[in-house]
């Protein structure tokens, strides 16, 4: 990088809000990345888990808040705790099991033992610390934790506004609509695909609200669909959808408005492609109204709800980003299904997930390729700007914020506006 490259002290050069232009340094400046990890990932609610991933008392999973490795766990009363995975003595991780069940966490180095709430319970030979050693001051570093409809978030910011306020009414409403794909059952995580991509985390943040790329990047996926499904995914030509800024960096990309509320118009006939599945569910003894609800839910919702800074509720799965370095981001595609629902329905959901998502999917590898191409491309022309101004010309006032054409970059502008606000603090 040359010395006259815009630095993060000049936020307008990094994101010019009026013209929706992004500076190349946004993807490549390691100093800027360090600043983002402090000012963004330690100053807002960050998604860490779905409650079904650690369902029981003593269940835990490892996660991340920005660069910080954390443990998410339920204590004996079922209360959720999140703490940094680092012993308060000499910093070793106290857990390296990705997911499981335990009654405590013990550091492997000198045996300091912590309770499920992160408190320091016992340490070998405490006498050498003297009489005034206060165990209460040496618990694992805790984060504030709150949940909404099964989605668990944590924050390092002590005085962060409550989660529901940060999300806002519109986001909460869309989360509730998204969770209807439980088909009357609680939503449960069924598994996940994980892959790391040589790209800046904001490339991913943009992509979850980018419908414009779909017919180009995913043409080969579209060609493997039946006619009815292909038509449904042809949301750019149909032009009925929209993208809307929901505030605080969040946005909604409504690709298939007919599937905004999965409970609407449930009397409609079951589509031909789902008839075989419907029969399997009938054969398991479910009444017809429930069969229709479950079959409708199998296909997922008709929108991507994008939450700043790290999770998207994407049609039928959760997409989570974890920044690793300025040029590397980990991606998880978390498959969800119906907890206690018919096996046939969950199998159908899993097969749909495998079809598009993950390292061997018919969609994700092509996404990963273009994301990497962005990172490679930004090595050149560093004075050029990245354009996120698509759809500004015909944007209107939506019920919650600016609303643009389905292919508009309204959601990216929402995210960058929030980015700039946090970075300016």
């Amino acid at each position, binding site marked *: 990088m040359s010395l006259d490259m815009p630095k993060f002290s000049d936020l307008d050069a990094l994101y010019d809000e009026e013209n929706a232009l992004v500076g190349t340094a946004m993807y490549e400046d390691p100093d800027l990345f360090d600043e983002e990890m402090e000012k963004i990932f330690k100053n807002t609610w960050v998604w860490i888990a779905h409650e079904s991933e650690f369902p029981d008392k003593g269940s835990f999973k490892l996660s991340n808040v920005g660069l910080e490795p954390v443990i998410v766990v339920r204590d004996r009363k079922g209360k959720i705790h999140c703490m940094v995975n680092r012993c308060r003595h000499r910093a070793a991780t106290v857990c390296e099991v*990705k997911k499981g069940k335990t009654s405590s966490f013990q550091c492997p180095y000198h045996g300091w033992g912590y309770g499920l709430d992160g408190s320091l319970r016992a340490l070998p030979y405490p006498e050498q610390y003297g009489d005034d050693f206060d165990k209460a001051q040496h618990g694992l570093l805790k984060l504030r934790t709150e949940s909404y409809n099964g989605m668990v978030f944590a924050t390092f910011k002590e005085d962060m506004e409550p989660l529901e306020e940060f999300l806002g009414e519109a986001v909460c409403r869309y989360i509730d609509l998204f969770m209807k794909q439980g088909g009357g059952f609680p939503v449960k995580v*069924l*598994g*996940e*695909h*994980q*892959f*790391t*991509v040589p790209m800046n985390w904001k490339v991913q943040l943009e992509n979850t609200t980018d419908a414009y790329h779909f017919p180009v*990047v995913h*043409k*080969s*996926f579209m*060609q*493997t669909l039946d006619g009815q499904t292909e038509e449904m995914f042809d949301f750019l030509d149909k032009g009925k959808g929209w993208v809307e800024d929901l505030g605080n960096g969040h946005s909604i990309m409504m690709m298939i408005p007919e599937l905004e509320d999965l409970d609407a118009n449930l009397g409609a006939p079951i589509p031909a492609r789902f008839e075989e599945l419907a029969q399997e569910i009938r054969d398991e003894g479910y009444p017809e109204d429930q069969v229709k609800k479950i079959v409708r839910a199998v296909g997922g919702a008709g929108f991507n709800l994008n939450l700043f800074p790290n999770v998207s509720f994407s049609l039928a799965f959760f997409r989570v980003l974890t920044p690793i370095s300025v040029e590397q981001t*980990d991606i998880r595609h978390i*498959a969800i299904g119906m907890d206690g629902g018919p*096996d046939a329905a*969950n*199998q159908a959901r*899993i*097969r749909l*997930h*495998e*079809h598009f998502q*993950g*390292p*061997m999917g*018919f969609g*994700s*590898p*092509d996404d*990963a*390729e*273009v994301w*990497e*191409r962005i990172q*490679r491309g930004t090595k050149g022309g560093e004075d050029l700007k990245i354009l996120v101004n698509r759809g500004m010309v015909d944007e209107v006032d939506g019920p919650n914020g600016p609303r643009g054409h389905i292919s508009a970059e309204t959601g990216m502008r929402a995210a960058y506006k929030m980015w700039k606000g946090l970075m300016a603090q």
Partner: protein
Amino acid sequence: MTEMSKIDTKSLLADVTAFIWAEGAMLDAREYDEWLDLWTDDGLYIMPIGDTVDFQNSVNLCYDNAKMRKDRIGRFHQGFSISSAPPALTVRTLSRFRIEGTEGDLVTVTCAEHVIEDKFGRQRTWAGNIAYTLKSTEGGFKLHQKIIRLLNSDGMLNSFSYLF
């Protein structure tokens, strides 16, 4: 399963090894249409995540029946998939063959696979354990089930534009 002591393992081992090496050479050479012909109609090509054995009810990296295999190869061929046009190039080594058992016309073989891929001037290495179920036919072996377990299947992977 037939007891191992009753099988002429030496001759069978040579036969299955020759078949699996030929299959591996086909995949490196991207002779995918020929590869599709190696399969039984109800065969399954599976790359599980973690140590699950209940593939049907688990999220796998892939769970390909005949239609999915055909669609996957179609995607590689048609030139619209940016990740596979061009794809990464691969060189693989298959070794440590062991016949686990036979039952009727089916033989189960396990082996180790190392794949090195090259794209964008960057090489990546993958290691996996494969369990083959081969079906003996008049025209030679057919692939009936191929289960590839990458060592880090439940960790952070990259995206793949080829087959294991």
